[in-house]
């Protein structure tokens, strides 16, 4: 079996194991074993990938395999990875692993919870390994629907509303996507669903591209929290249980950026060039608006959710800049945002689990009460505002560098505008950190709270390590990515 097929297969096997397990211990065992295996697989994949590239392998996609699935529509089960996907797989594996530990304290109906969680990861992994439009889309939708139940059943707050809103908006997005995919397939002569092959054909007429590009881009953009379509994200994140927020903000939103890059722009390059300005404007709005919105929130999760809107907006922004540097930055930003946002949500979940409130007005002085979590929170915050040495800096610098390389005024102006988000980010991060971690602890109840347990520590440490690792040694990641990005960019510009 192809190593890539193992990625969606492992969670499936985990689901089977969960189905059969009888006790909480068994469930935990299955989850730990499975998610560790996934991380191991991801690491092996990275090593192999780098090895192959080092050996001079130049094909855009490696580890490819293709099995005919639905012959009449040329649907194949086709897998393959390039640098971007490898990075994403690694990210996903890490998040799934840490998410498992973040859900360690979960008590209600954990069997079903982990079942849906695994289904979610099936979708995520499947999406990143597929190179067939149909399979990709299928995995994309597989990832969406468990969200509904995870948020609706295990969430908190206005969970029903949030779950429904999230599901419907994302399904709306996928509806646009589906028609776009059909448009691409039939526009390219209805002979293949393989992304590489369609790109190679390069035969979709511009008039059709003009129709399908916005649809596909918006379709993925909804998931990537593109400005007018982002409203599901704060509600969804706020209501979701911790691990789901992590997975969602950390990985699922990346599906949007990845899809925009890999499908919308790669397969519909001419329209992408022609229409990119609209979306650049939207993403700029997204970036700035998200940051400003985060400033006025009082709920920790909402703050982080809006921050995600801002950062994911940055991903799309970078993608639309269409040069290698910005593209690389986009992927780095995906990685970085995935990790730090997951860390954020994990920590918020842990704090919430103790204090039962996420309102920053009711929190304060937590640094003394739970130093470990507080330190973690500070690190996440610093990464978020782009402190050098942590992953955020690497990503954002690359993006703005790349974006500014455009000679024309329009691109430069929007880049400058987007840059302001860094400052605003600093404002809201520091405000929160100052309010809840330092200062005095007004609530006597909070003083009795305990610090992180071992499972929480494990997940936080993993994520912090990853963030720091990326910040300190960004080159191997960006090297891995750059080749693939430049390949795609070259195709778009050709």
């Amino acid at each position, binding site marked *: 079996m192809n190593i890539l097929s193992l990625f969606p297969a492992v969670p499936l096997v985990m689901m089977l194991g969960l189905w059969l397990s009888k006790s909480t211990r068994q469930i935990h065992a299955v989850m730990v074993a499975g998610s560790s295996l996934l991380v191991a697989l991801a690491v092996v994949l990275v090593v192999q990938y780098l090895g192959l590239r080092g050996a001079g392998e130049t094909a855009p996609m490696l580890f490819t395999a293709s099995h005919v699935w639905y012959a*009449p*529509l040329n649907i194949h089960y086709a897998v393959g990875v390039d640098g971007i996907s490898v990075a994403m797989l690694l990210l996903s594996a890490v998040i799934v692993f840490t998410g498992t530990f973040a859900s360690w304290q979960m008590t209600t109906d954990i069997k079903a919870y982990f079942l849906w969680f695994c289904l979610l990861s099936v979708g995520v992994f499947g999406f990143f390994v597929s190179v067939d439009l149909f399979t990709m889309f*299928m995995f994309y939708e597989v990832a969406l629907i468990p969200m*509904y139940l995870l948020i609706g059943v295990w969430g908190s707050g206005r969970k029903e509303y949030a779950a429904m809103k999230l599901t419907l908006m994302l399904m709306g997005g996928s509806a646009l996507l589906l028609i776009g995919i059909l448009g691409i397939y039939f526009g390219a002569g*209805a002979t293949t669903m393989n992304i590489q092959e369609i790109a190679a054909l390069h035969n979709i007429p511009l008039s059709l591209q003009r*129709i399908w590009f916005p649809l596909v881009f918006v379709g993925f953009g909804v998931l990537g929290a593109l400005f007018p379509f982002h409203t599901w994200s704060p509600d969804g994140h706020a209501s979701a249980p911790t691990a789901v927020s992590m997975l969602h903000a950390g990985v699922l939103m990346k599906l949007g950026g990845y899809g925009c890059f890999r499908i919308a722009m790669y397969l519909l390059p001419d329209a992408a060039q022609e229409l990119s300005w609209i979306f650049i404007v939207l993403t700029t709005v997204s970036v700035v608006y998200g940051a400003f919105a985060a400033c006025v929130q009082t709920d920790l999760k909402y703050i982080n959710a809006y921050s995600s809107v801002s950062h994911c907006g940055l991903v799309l922004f970078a993608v639309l800049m269409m040069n290698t540097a910005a593209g690389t930055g986009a992927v780095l930003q995906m990685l970085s945002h995935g990790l730090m946002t997951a860390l954020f949500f994990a920590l918020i979940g842990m704090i919430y689990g103790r204090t039962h409130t996420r309102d920053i007005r009711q929190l304060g002085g937590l640094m003394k009460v739970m130093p470990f979590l507080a330190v973690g929170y500070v690190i996440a915050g610093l990464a978020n505002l782009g402190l050098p040495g942590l992953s955020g800096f690497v990503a954002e610098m690359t993006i703005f560098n790349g974006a500014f390389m455009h000679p024309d005024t329009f691109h430069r102006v929007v880049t400058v505008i987007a840059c302001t988000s860094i400052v605003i980010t600093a404002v809201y991060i520091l405000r929160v950190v100052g309010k809840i971690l330092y200062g005095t602890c007004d609530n006597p109840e909070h003083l009795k709270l305990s610090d992180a347990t071992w499972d929480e520590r494990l997940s936080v440490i993993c994520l912090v390590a990853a963030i720091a690792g990326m910040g300190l040694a960004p080159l191997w990641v960006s090297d891995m990515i750059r080749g693939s990005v430049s390949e795609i960019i070259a195709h778009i510009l050709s």
Partner: protein
Amino acid sequence: MDYTSIFTLMRAEVTLTAILVLVFLYDLVAGERGRRRFSAVVCGLLVVQVAASLLPGGEGELFGGMFQYHPMHGIVKGVLAVGALVVCLQADTWLRREDTRHKQGEFYILILSTLLGMYFMIGAGNFLLFFIGLELASVPTACLVAFDKYKRYSAEAGAKYILCALFSSGLMLYGISFLYGTTGTLYFGDMAALLDGSPLQVMALVFFFSGLGFKISLVPFHLWTADSYQGAPTAVTSYLSVVSKGAAAFVLLTVLVKVFAPMVREWQTLLWIVTVLSITVANLFAIRQRDLKRFMAFSSISQAGYIMLAVIGGSALGMTSLVFYVLVYMAANLAVFGVLSVVEQHTGGKVGLEDYNGFGKTNPRLALGMTLALFSLAGIPPFAGFFSKFFVFAAAFEGGFHGLVFIALVNTVISLYYYLLIVKAMYITPNDTPVAAFRADRCTRISLAICMAGVLLLGVVSAVYDGINLFSFGL
């Protein structure tokens, strides 16, 4: 006349007739003990029927083109027989009740005769046989709808069904009469050659279409649907929503392709409007429903709209997609109705949406089955519904109906909303007095297992689709 060709080309009909007669005789001679084994007998025979229908065979026609056989017909007949089988399994609990036990035989006979009618409708190569098949399919259905004799709703539903069925067949016949008047033949093949798209024929097409539209319950011909679905016994509702609808949809496609090929532009326009209306209106109405049977009625109307997406292109791809869609829809819808029906039997007739609050806690297996089926209906992967929806969209898209596909897609979102309402009721909404935990009887469990297998496997295992695709034909 060559008798062997009757037995080879009409084998589905011949076996079904034999089964019908056997069941009939069994009903006449069986005593009280024999009655108890009735469902086993019928289901066993239906398995034989499925096998007989699916046996491969060559193309051909009988009685001078009156009856046609195409391997695709065999597949559709097999699919319908599977549907009938599952319905019979699900009806068992209900049929064992005190007030229906003595009517078991009638139920099975009526089901089988409607099935026979559908077979003839599918195999028809002439409007006369088509009409006879249609009526044979719809008249016993009315009896089935009104089967719960002492329930007022059932009788009401039956009356509405039969009146609407009569009305629609009247309209359809009126259409056919003008087709006959303008072409002078009733044979599909001859008629196709003689149609020229004159205004009279367009009118005839509209009438004909409205007749079939009633059977498929497309908006604006859907008025009977909700009431009949609500009033009919649940097993019958599921039969109505799946088997008869599927048959009618397939026939619509074949007739449009075979007979109305010269008027393709006209009927595509017609279908376009009707499809948009069906999907949209039904979805909007479904949101308001609180009775799950009515709810499923509107859901089935919108599903009918999706089926029409496969018809509109008139292509071979469309036909494959249609049959596949019907098969998948059958699995999912029958699963939903299976759960509905068993809950109704165990709770003394509870079918309201709020009755299902907290159902997921007390009966997790049934709730899970229902959830998966609803996801399949909504078109969520990896369940089969996703694949079938994708294929009908692809079929319509291939025909160039981009706007239509777009509208349909937007509607899938709405439909997801209301399907999720049920999921929400089952898993999320708290309830102090949920449906008590119970264990479904064997027949229901078998039927649900079949449906679940369908929901989970039909999409992933592409062999089914490929098998259907081998035999499809189009314009």
